[in-house]
């Protein structure tokens, strides 16, 4: 049976700079140490049976952490992380204070009376569960799992599992030290793309092996070149998601090198040393698939596909929409590169309620000049790329103007419907010369 010790460290605020010192202290208790976020750490608590048991482990950890300069420590030990985390949170009420040990096999009983705050699920789901009258973990655990799945999907199943003491979160060891890198001194005149790619494959293989050994993925890879003249050049590769897939990183690095060598396939200088470094790393994702959930999709495979597209189409080739407050439609049409995104949640959620679908705007990259006839203040006819059509309805004007300090504009927008049912977005622009001009900016579909 697994045993996990969770340690909450107070004292000075714990940040990256404290990690080496804290890790060293925690290693006194176990060779497997992980940071679970902020001031919470976990260590593997197995193997202390012949060394005085878990009480001795807790005592050892308390002493080591105090020696490291952290005054207040709470330790919880249990079969699974959800219970040991909760025990660490309640350890100040234990006797003696500071350590709370949940006996093996008693996880479910221990969790049952605890409030929902101890459940590591999103706050909005907690609020919904409270609204339904579920106040403690035991009330969730006794429910049928299928009932929660039907109502909340995979998030409900996860909540039920955790409340019942089933926690399959994977132990992610802390890595302290230099980022993985591999270097090669090159012999002879090396400036051709093929030569660099040959070296790159070898170096990436070593870096990816180191990453795998550390349980990490690269979120930024640096390619460092020392030139014959002694000067140094560097290029960086940022995959859409942290990865240690050798082929994917190779494709991305190759795209960078191809850009650097251009059509000639040669660099402008000879390289004498080539280094590949995983400059930034992140814990490896270990999301578990579900054999019976046909909809489960591998986020790493998605990341790999998007990264390859990005390498081929350029950074603006793979994008995602973002909110931007602006009056000008083309400025509101804001997209960001996929690499700028946080990790998306692939957790299932409730099906969206399906009301009437709303018309979706298709915005032209460059507005098209058109002719519009008006009579009596109403738009009557439109003449554009698809010919001349009468307008049966039009709404407007919506007047937009601004940016007088850099790029002034003054427009009147109309939503117009042609006799054939096309819903067009037209605008009339006032030019500084005093002339008016009509433009087609898009259509609704």
């Amino acid at each position, binding site marked *: 049976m697994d045993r996990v010790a969770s340690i909450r460290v107070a004292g000075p605020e714990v940040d990256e700079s404290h990690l080496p010192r804290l890790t060293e202290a925690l290693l006194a208790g176990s060779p497997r140490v992980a940071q679970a976020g902020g001031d919470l750490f976990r260590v593997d608590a197995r193997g202390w049976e012949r060394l005085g048991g878990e009480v001795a482990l807790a005592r050892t950890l308390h002493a080591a952490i105090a020696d490291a300069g952290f005054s207040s420590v709470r330790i919880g030990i249990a079969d699974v992380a959800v219970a040991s985390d909760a025990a660490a949170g309640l350890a100040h009420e234990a006797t003696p204070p500071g350590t709370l040990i949940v006996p093996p096999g008693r996880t479910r009983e221990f969790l049952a009376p605890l409030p929902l705050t101890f459940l590591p699920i999103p706050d909005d789901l907690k609020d919904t569960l409270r609204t339904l009258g579920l106040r403690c973990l035991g009330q969730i655990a006794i429910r049928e799992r299928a009932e929660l799945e039907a109502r909340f999907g995979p998030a409900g199943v996860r909540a039920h599992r955790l409340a019942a003491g089933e926690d399959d979160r994977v132990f992610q060891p802390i890595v302290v030290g230099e980022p993985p890198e591999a270097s090669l001194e090159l012999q002879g005149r090396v400036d051709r793309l093929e030569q660099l790619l040959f070296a790159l494959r070898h170096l990436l293989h070593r870096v990816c092996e180191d990453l795998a050994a550390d349980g990490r993925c690269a979120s930024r890879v640096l390619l460092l070149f020392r030139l014959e003249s002694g000067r140094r050049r560097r290029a960086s590769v940022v995959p859409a998601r942290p990865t240690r897939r050798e082929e994917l990183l190779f494709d991305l690095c190759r795209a960078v090198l191809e850009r650097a060598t251009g059509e000639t396939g040669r660099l402008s200088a000879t390289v004498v040393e080539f280094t590949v470094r995983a400059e930034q790393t992140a814990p490896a994702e270990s999301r578990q698939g579900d054999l019976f959930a046909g909809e489960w999709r*591998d986020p790493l495979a998605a990341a790999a*596909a998007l990264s390859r597209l990005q390498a081929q*189409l350029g950074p603006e080739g793979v994008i995602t929409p973002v909110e931007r407050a602006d009056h000008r439609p083309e400025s509101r049409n804001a997209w960001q590169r996929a690499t700028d995104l946080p990790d998306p949640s692939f*957790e299932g959620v409730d099906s969206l309620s399906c009301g009437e679908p709303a018309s979706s705007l298709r915005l032209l990259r460059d507005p098209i000049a058109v002719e519009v006839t*008006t009579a009596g203040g109403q738009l009557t006819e439109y003449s554009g790329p698809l010919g001349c059509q009468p307008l049966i309805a039009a709404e407007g004007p919506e007047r937009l103007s601004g940016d007088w300090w850099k790029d002034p504009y003054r427009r009147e927008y109309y939503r117009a419907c042609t006799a054939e049912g096309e819903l067009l977005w037209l605008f009339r622009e006032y030019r500084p010369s005093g002339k008016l001009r009509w433009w087609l900016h898009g259509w609704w579909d």
Partner: protein
Amino acid sequence: MARTATVQQLEKAIDTLVVQPRAHVRTLSTGFERLDALLPEGGLPRGRATEWIGPRSCGKTALLRAVLGRVAAMGEPVAYVDGGWTLFAPDWVELAERGFWVVRPGDTGEAAWSADLLLRSGAFGAVVLDPGGSGTGSAVNGTPGLRRNVAVRLQRLAEEAESVFVVMDEMPIAALRLRFRPGRIEPVGDPLFGHLLPPVRPLWVGVEKRGMTEVPVLCPVPSSRREVRPSRDRKGPE
């Protein structure tokens, strides 16, 4: 010459390939009962190509967005190959929160290649290939449609990925063809503004050999229409 002949021979052989229907097809409900009832398996088929074509402004993108929202709501990422670069970001922000990516290729060839890569990954619950005509079809927009050998390859990949695969263009071997046409728009008479857009308009969806049904689509009327009225002295366009 011999090589060209061999390539042509191979292309002909590919053209004769027929995609075998599978015994059981998993489907995705569109969220509209009458439309689901019209579809052969009670929903959009997963693992098969669906042709999605209609004239400009008929409302097909509105319905597509609603369907993609359902895929994203199930926790499956969605990718949209936007060959015409015409998607308007604010309309799609809600989907982005659940895993929605837009790929903007340089030309039709790159669009098909992008769809190939996305389907091959097996990581997307839905992939939309909109080569550039925004679903009006090659006959209308003049872009070259998908070649049959490309269509066969994409169909195979969609089948392996069990993804909803929507092609907004003519697809030679599509398992399902949806045709959209706009319903009649009845302008709302207003004493001050003249003829205005109605709040809702009909969209007609036709499924090959199975008939048509109507889906209501919200019109893009300004939400402030009734609250903000111009003063009497403001002139309209002349």
